[in-house]
């Protein structure tokens, strides 16, 4: 029982973190139209920064790993710094990578950013211990809370879910605001958006940085939970998992994004752990990636709306309350308005 409970809680934590990733990418790609193929880099920088400011100074006692900074900051600070790092790195990448250019070139630039970051992190041991990565990162409040390890699991579940809900509220509010509408306009027709006076360069950078911050936060949460982080965890292909989850669930529909995350990274990628080993040890992994690639191609071919299609923001004669798509029913009618005006 305990093992199961442990496993399920672990899955819930992963799920919450993957949902954060999907929210980030849904904002950037679903609303902003940025094909951010370097998404995983921003999660990784969040994880590395959270790790480096938790581990304490690199005394050489942990002779097997070297890393920069090395502070032991108290509980929420590593997460905050992870978020800031995600945002800062996206600002840097965005400043050169998001200029107006062919969309496929832009996507290629971001993909290569992902490859470069990975090569650098892997081969430069002085940054974050190279390909071995950093390990032994203590859990937040792990020693102060008087909890069994199972009890701690539940605390972490609640904690990640709480963050997830807060971020959900944020992205939903943002994407249904006039700012979110401008994002969609930019995604659909850039020239026309510009001719409404909207500075698309700034807009794109904004959504990129906000998405990067969420990605950094998710990385921080992840590394504080698993306690280790290395280049093996963030190959460029990890970004495809998040994209595929969005495509499958339903892009721009938050419920769809959540459902897709449940199906793809959690059920599809976690279930095979129960399969008996087939072939050589890495076979299941390879097959999983092949299927991810096929799902990705399939969703581009059939252009599905996903399992839960985007909801149309309906308006009815005399009812304008739901323009922002927030689903608020605080509508009012022009007719009643005019009556009041007369009276």
């Amino acid at each position, binding site marked *: 029982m305990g093992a199961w409970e442990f496993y399920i809680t672990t899955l819930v934590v992963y799920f919450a973190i993957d949902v954060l990733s999907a929210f980030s990418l849904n904002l950037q790609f679903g609303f902003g139209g940025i094909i951010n193929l370097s998404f995983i880099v921003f999660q990784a920088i969040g994880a590395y920064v959270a790790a480096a400011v938790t581990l304490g100074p690199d005394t050489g006692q942990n002779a097997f790993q070297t890393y920069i900074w090395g502070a032991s900051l108290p509980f929420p600070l590593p997460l905050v710094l992870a978020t800031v790092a995600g945002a800062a790195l996206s600002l840097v990448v965005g400043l050169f990578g998001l200029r107006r250019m062919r969309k496929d070139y832009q996507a290629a630039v971001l993909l290569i950013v992902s490859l470069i970051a990975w090569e650098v992190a892997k081969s430069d041991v002085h940054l974050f211990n190279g390909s071995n990565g950093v390990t032994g990162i203590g859990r937040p409040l792990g020693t102060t809370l008087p909890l069994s390890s199972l009890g701690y699991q539940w605390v972490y579940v609640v904690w990640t879910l709480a963050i997830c809900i807060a971020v959900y509220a944020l992205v939903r509010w943002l994407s249904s*605001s*006039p700012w979110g509408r401008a994002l969609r306009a930019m995604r659909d027709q850039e*020239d*026309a958006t510009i001719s*409404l*006076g909207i500075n698309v360069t700034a*807009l794109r950078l904004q959504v990129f940085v906000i998405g990067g911050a969420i990605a950094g936060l998710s990385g921080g949460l992840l590394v504080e939970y698993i306690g280790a982080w290395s280049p093996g965890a963030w190959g460029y292909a990890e970004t495809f998992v998040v994209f595929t989850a969005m495509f499958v669930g339903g892009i721009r529909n938050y419920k769809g994004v959540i459902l897709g995350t449940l199906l793809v990274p959690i059920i599809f990628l976690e279930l095979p752990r129960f399969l008996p080993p087939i072939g050589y040890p890495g076979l299941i992994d390879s097959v999983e990636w092949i299927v991810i690639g096929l799902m990705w191609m399939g969703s581009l071919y059939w252009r599905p709306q996903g399992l839960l299609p985007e909801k149309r923001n*309906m308006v009815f004669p005399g009812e304008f309350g739901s*323009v922002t798509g927030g689903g608020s029913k605080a509508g009012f009618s022009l007719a009643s308005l005019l009556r009041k005006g007369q009276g």
Partner: protein
Amino acid sequence: MVAELIESEDLKNIVTSPETNPAASKIMLTARDVVVSYGGVAAVDGVSFEVRAGEALGLIGPNGAGKSSMLAALGGQAKVGKGSIVLDGHEISHLAAYKRARLGLVRTFQTTSEFSDMTTFENLVTAGNGYLGARLSSVVFHHRLNSKADKQIAVRAWEMLERFDMTEKANTYGRELSGGQRRLVEIMRCLMASPKVLLLDEPMVGVAPHLVEKLVGDLKSIRDEGIAIVIVEHALEVVRALSDKVVVMSFGKKIADATYDEIVHDQAVQDAYLG
């Protein structure tokens, strides 16, 4: 509370149109010796004209004459190689396109440019919000103000739909509309942005014949509200009905600048068209 706010001054201003401008109004847009070149070839070669508030200028010429390139120079989509463009007293030839739009220069494109994954209503509301509403800072810090403004814009958008008989298409995505309806959406969107100068690139392509007449009427009334219009159009009856003056381009150069009736009898123009 909200309803009271809406019912106040703003709405009345929207409902009643401003007084029509006198004919001899101020010059809204001046182009002087504008040159646009693509890789050394001049698509627009020293074209000049001016448009007054409440005036419509027809820009015509054979295919490839450089009309769209001229509009791109005005709107900021193409780099102005030489010459100057003055919008309502501001030199804009080196301003970014979005800044020109903020000064009141709004345009449509030769290929329809509706927001395809947004409903007609959202298309209009986006334009109504403009750049001020779309600012992240105003969303975050002036959320309440913003949502009030949103409702006013919604009211205006609905009125716009009514004006163009498009209320049935309010919830239709841009990609689901017919070509003519997309053109209409574009024009409505421009109007939602409260322009001073409106640049239209072949707005009648694909529009059903009975709607063309209506659209011409609407454009006339827009013009009479004091908006300067530059319209590129191959359908000459539209140009005749709408334009106070006509500029003819051929091979990047202006070959005539007069009223429609003078133009049709101009030998150079006939030569250009007959090739």
